[in-house]
């Protein structure tokens, strides 16, 4: 994870049309920890929600063949069950709950050491890419995390 660049997913472990599993390792040091919290570094809960949203987003991007961009629209029942500190190895999962017209609902979940640390139900609006640069960046991110390789496996 590169928290300050909002690169939350390191590598896709497995993916199919309905779900995606990925790994994310919390860095040992980050400017984020200077404020959250001094002397007691923790990954902010909002960044854990963002991590689930990104896993969901990559699942939806792959489903649409990168035709449209998912944007986080709502977060329901977010539960932050355990503290997550520097160096933690996380497994991030996103599962499709419903694909509607112009939106999708996913179930997100993060585990550390086999223990659930957070979960939420996420709604993402799925819109045309507002800029070609964004589509190119998302394709590059997907390649970085091995999304296509995971889908092909």
């Amino acid at each position, binding site marked *: 994870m590169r928290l300050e660049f909002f690169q939350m997913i390191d590598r896709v472990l497995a993916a199919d049309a309905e779900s995606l599993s990925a790994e994310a390792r919390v860095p040992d040091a980050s400017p984020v920890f200077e404020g959250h919290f001094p002397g007691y570094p923790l990954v902010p809960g909002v960044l854990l929600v963002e991590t689930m949203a990104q896993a969901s987003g990559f699942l939806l991007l792959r489903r649409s063949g990168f035709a449209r961009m998912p944007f986080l*629209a*709502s977060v329901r029942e977010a539960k932050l069950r355990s503290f997550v500190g520097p160096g933690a190895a996380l497994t991030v999962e996103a599962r499709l709950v*419903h*694909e*509607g*017209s*112009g*939106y999708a*609902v996913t179930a997100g979940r993060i585990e550390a050491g086999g223990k659930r640390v957070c979960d939420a139900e996420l*709604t993402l*609006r799925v819109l045309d890419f507002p800029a070609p640069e964004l589509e190119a960046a998302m394709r590059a991110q997907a390649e970085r995390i091995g999304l296509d390789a995971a889908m092909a496996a």
Partner: protein
Amino acid sequence: MDSAFDRIADIIAETGGVPREKITPESHVIDDLGIDSLDFLDIVFAIDKSFGIKVPVEAWTQEVNAGQAPPGQYFVMGNLVARIEELAAAKEGAGAKVAGG
């Protein structure tokens, strides 16, 4: 079972925080009931789940924006209910065809 109107009105009341008695067949979901786009998304999700359909909101919105349909055709409660009943009936018909081979 409640009518389609009651089911949809209950969803809108619960999801959009609208007093149930305020919702009539003549209510415009956005103009009269004050439902914003995010609440409408949640409402559509609840309708999709409840009726087992996929409300084609994007196609409706495109038709309205292109001037091919008046907004009331889809967003006035009575018409919205009629469209959803049509979608549910079409789905049942498709299911019956599959079941009948």
